[in-house]
Every structure is written in structure tokens, then in C-alpha cells.
């Protein structure tokens, strides 16, 4: 490819004490892509996101964003550059209603810079902007749902709220940590077009998933992690055909099922 990658990860290594959570993982992400990251439980997927987004310090390696070194920068500075993430264990502000959850990211320096809105200005205050974003992400505008306390929302809405928090920052990249897991088939079916729309809006997505079938439908490229090492990288078809990947996932019914469809 001749394009410059938007994100370059070089030889990223992370050790927790004696445990090698990540060992020399390298990959590139190009603008506008959807990259899938899969791997068995404990293979280091979440740790990879944490290292890239600055939530934990990496042991060695480099992360470049548009050619600029962001290795080891503080998490809020990385988010401020437009590299956002969702949390695998959802982290809403439980004591606030759903739409108020978005007032916080909308108050951030990045949202003020990129959004062009000011509280109470012509474009509406942060509450209305928050409700707009929630509607965009699949909360029914005229229902009570956006006004409910986050602690009372079901999983499906909390996953959407995680994405909405990222969208409030007008992100360049969103790292999604298992946004499909815990959702019913119909919820996933309504989430997939949403992901596709984000891609059409020019947002680059990196998606960690265990729901391979749905991931393979949207992802342009997939990377496989196993025991903290990059096993392989390629198109969905290549991954499904790989013996190595089958072995890594040995015993996982879903994979066998997906593989058998291939």
C-alpha cells in the first residue's frame, strides 16, 4: 500500500511482572478502515488497547499516530488527539441520566475545538447536543430512554452509550472493546449498520471481538492474537482458512461453526 498509515504500532511489548501480556506486536491501521482483532480469552487484546490509548504504560515499543510518536503519552492527551476507546467493562456515569453522560465529553477541550458548539449557543447547549448524539447512535429520541439513569439501562444501550462518548469527541479512531458481546442477535443486527455508518463518516475503527461472524461481515482486515503474540493478519477469508487460527481457538464452538461455513 502506498497510503500512509494513520496508526503504526511497532514491536509493542508489555509485561505484568513475570507475565508477558504482549510480545513484540506490530501492525498498521489505515485511514477509514475497520480492523478486527481477535484472539482467545487472555490473549492480550484489551491490554493492547490500554497500551495504545495510554491507560497503561507499555514496557517497550512504539506507537505512531499520523507519523507522530505518541508512545507513553497521558491517556487524556491521546484521547484529545482523537484516538478514543470504549471499555470492555462498560463505564458510564451511573448516577447521571444517559444524555447527561455526554455533557462530560462535550465539555472536553477536543469537543469544544472540533464541535464548534458552546454551551447555550446557537447550536444548542450540551444537553441537546448530547440527545442528538444519542439519537444518532440508536436511542429513541422521543422515548424516555435518553433521560433514564445510566444505572438502569440494559447492556445494549450501555454499549451504545460507550460509543456515543467516543463520538462526542469527533474522533478519528475508535477502539471498540467487544461492543457486540452480551448483545442479542437482533441487537447486534441493529448495531452492524451503525458501525458501517461510522466508517462511512470517515472514522477509522479497530474492533476487538469474540463474535467472529458479525466481525467478519464488517472488518476489512483481521489480526489474530494468541498468548500475547501476533499470530497472523489478513482478510476474513484468509483467517478462516488458516489452520493455525483454528488451533488457537481449538474448542471454541463458535469458531468451528464459523469456520465450517467458510
Amino acid at each position, binding site marked *: 500500500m502506498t497510503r500512509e498509515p494513520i496508526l503504526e504500532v511497532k514491536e509493542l511489548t508489555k509485561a505484568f511482572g513475570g507475565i508477558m501480556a504482549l510480545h513484540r506486536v506490530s501492525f498498521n491501521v489505515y485511514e477509514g478502515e475497520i480492523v478486527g482483532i481477535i484472539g482467545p480469552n487472555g490473549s492480550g487484546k484489551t491490554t493492547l488497547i490500554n497500551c495504545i*490509548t495510554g*491507560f497503561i504504560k507499555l514496557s517497550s515499543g512504539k506507537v505512531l499516530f499520523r507519523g507522530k510518536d505518541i508512545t507513553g503519552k*497521558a*491517556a*487524556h*492527551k491521546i*484521547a*484529545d488527539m482523537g484516538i*478514543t*476507546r470504549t*471499555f470492555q467493562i462498560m*463505564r*458510564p*456515569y*451511573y*448516577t*447521571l441520566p444517559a444524555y*447527561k453522560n455526554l*455533557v*462530560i*465529553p*462535550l*465539555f*472536553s*477541550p*477536543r*469537543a469544544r475545538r472540533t464541535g464548534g458548539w458552546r*454551551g447555550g449557543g446557537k447550536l444548542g447547549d*450540551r444537553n441537546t447536543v448530547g440527545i442528538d448524539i444519542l439519537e444518532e447512535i440508536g436511542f429513541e429520541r422521543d422515548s424516555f430512554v435518553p433521560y433514564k439513569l445510566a444505572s438502569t439501562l440494559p447492556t445494549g444501550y450501555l454499549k451504545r452509550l460507550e460509543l456515543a*462518548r467516543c463520538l*462526542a*469527541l469527533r474522533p478519528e479512531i475508535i477502539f471498540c472493546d467487544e461492543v457486540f458481546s452480551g448483545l442479542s442477535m437482533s441487537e447486534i443486527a441493529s448495531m452492524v449498520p451503525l458501525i458501517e455508518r461510522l466508517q462511512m463518516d470517515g472514522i477509522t475503527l479497530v474492533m476487538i471481538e469474540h463474535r467472529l461472524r458479525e466481525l467478519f461481515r464488517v472488518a476489512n482486515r483481521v489480526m489474530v492474537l494468541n498468548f500475547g503474540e501476533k499470530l497472523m493478519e489478513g482478510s476474513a477469508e484468509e483467517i478462516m482458512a488458516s489452520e493455525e487460527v483454528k488451533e488457537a481457538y481449538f474448542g471454541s464452538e463458535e469458531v468451528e461453526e464459523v469456520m465450517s461455513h467458510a
Partner: protein
Amino acid sequence: MMAQTRRKERLDRGIRVRTDGLYALMSWRELSYLTLPRVVLIFGVLALPFVMPSMYWQRVISIVCIYSFLAISFDLLAHFVGLVSLGGAFFVGVGSYLAAILNTSLGLPVALTIPISTVLGATICTALLLPCLPLRGVYFAIVTLMYPLALARVIEALNILGGTDGIMGVASFPSRWVEQYFMIGALLLFLFAIRRLVNLDLGLVLRAVKDNDQAVRASGMNVTFYKAIAVFIASAMGCLAGASLVHIYMWAGISQFALDFSILPIAATVIGGAGTLTGPLLGCFILVPISELLRAFGTLRIVFYSLILVGFIVFRSEGIMVYAQRKYHQFERWVKV
């Protein structure tokens, strides 16, 4: 069993204010429903200097205000930012020594020493607490507790700033009316300003820091910066209290680093109702006079004091204000299950 066939049902009072703020302007009944509690509070406090029987009790009003500043400051940090502060003594100490120095060495009048000590003191306190702000957990509490102890020992050991004698000859307020109405006015101003602050978008961010600081970081915001803002506001209140105290006693000394300033505001917050901001103020209006009444008992008053506190924690752990708000806003009735 009776207890299980009956339960208490709570209903919101049928008042339209709740659905849309504009309705409040359409009837006197609803308007007064909204404003009455505030009016009673404001005029009640403003009337205090007139109804107090003696000079002694008028002095107590000022002391109550000083503790109220500290209690509101504690409540702001603990309930809205998630920082448990034992720093009342630290803030008071810094504020009072600053005011005393500005007054005795530089000859500044009271009208200048108090505002300068408030802002400068808050800056110093925030700077000193900055290193422990990125940490989560109990560190903030420990450090805020440690500073006043350390500073008092430093002043003692190095014999600086008047050593154990303290700084004497500090100017007093022009009159006791000025003193009391300055304290009361500033207290009401801060109370309503802070209540407004916590409902602004900035206040929402502070509450989010308490709720879930990781998500705040993921939103591109520097958690330490927002904690520092809150600590600045809280320590400004404490330093204002300390600076006023110095002009009331006309003396600054190491007893202004006394732990009473850290502990009593917390007790007042428990009694008054944590997270209500007005509750801690009420708590001070109850606790400080009681502790004055019990002064005759010497150190034994600590026992009474603890009994009151334990009683409150066991029987009314929500605090007076939360209880009162519920009674005011909701009907209660027994219903059969």
C-alpha cells in the same frame, strides 16, 4: 405479622414545578414552594446577630460561620469530587498565618488581607496538594491530615512566624456588626455559588471524576486538573475562614492548625446530610453551639460529642437535610401490601 402487610409509600407532592420550570412563575403557591426554604434560610441566618442574647453568643455566630465554610468545603470535595479531605486545619492554618503576616508586616487593612489570603492561600494549598492528586484512594486524606501537623511542628521547631507565641497584634474587624455580617454574607454567597457550581457542566465533570475517573480520561480530560480546580475552591473557603478567624481573635498561632478544624466539619456534614451543601451548614449551627455549651465539661465534652455523632450515624445516617428534603417534597402514607 403487621409489619409485613403494611409498607410506607412515598409520593411526590403534586406540584407542577417538577415537570417544567416555567410553571413556577404562574402561581404564588408554587413560587413560594420553591423559594420558601431559601428565604427562610437566608433571613434566618441574617437575623441571627439581632437575636443573640449576649456578646459571647454573638462571637459564637462568627465561629459557626467559620466551621460552616470548612464543612461546605469538605462536602464539596467528598461528595462531588470524591476526595476525602481532612485538611480543614491545613486551610485554616495557611489562611490565618497569611492574613496575620499581611496585616502585621505589610500593614494591609482587613479589607485586603482577607481576599488576598483567600486567593494566595488557596494557591499555596493547591500547589502543596498537587502531587497527591493523581493518586486514587486514601492518600489525599493522609496528606491533608499530615500537612497541618507538620507545619505546626516546623513553626515550633524553627521558631519562625512567632514560634509558639504566634503572631500578635493583628487588627480586628472595624466592629462586631461588620464582622458578623461579613461572615454571614460571605457564607451565604459561597453556599449558593457552590450549589450553582455543582449543577453547571463543570460541576457535572467534577461529579464524573468521582463517579468514574477512567471515563473522564477517555473523554480527553485531565482528571488531575479538574481535581485541582475543586481543591482550589475548597481550600479558598478554608483560607477565607482562617483569615477571618485571625482578625476575630487578633492573633495567629499554631492552635490554628488544630485538628478540631478538620474533624468537627466532618461530624457536622454527617449530621446535616452529606451531599446537600446546606446540610453541613445546618450541622455546624447545631454542633458548634453544643460544643460551646459543653465547654464547661472540659475534655469530657468529647464524650457527649461522640454520643451525638454515634446517635446520628445509627438512627439518622442520611442526615437532617436529606430527611427534611424528603419530607418537604414527598407525601408518605401507609399502604397495605
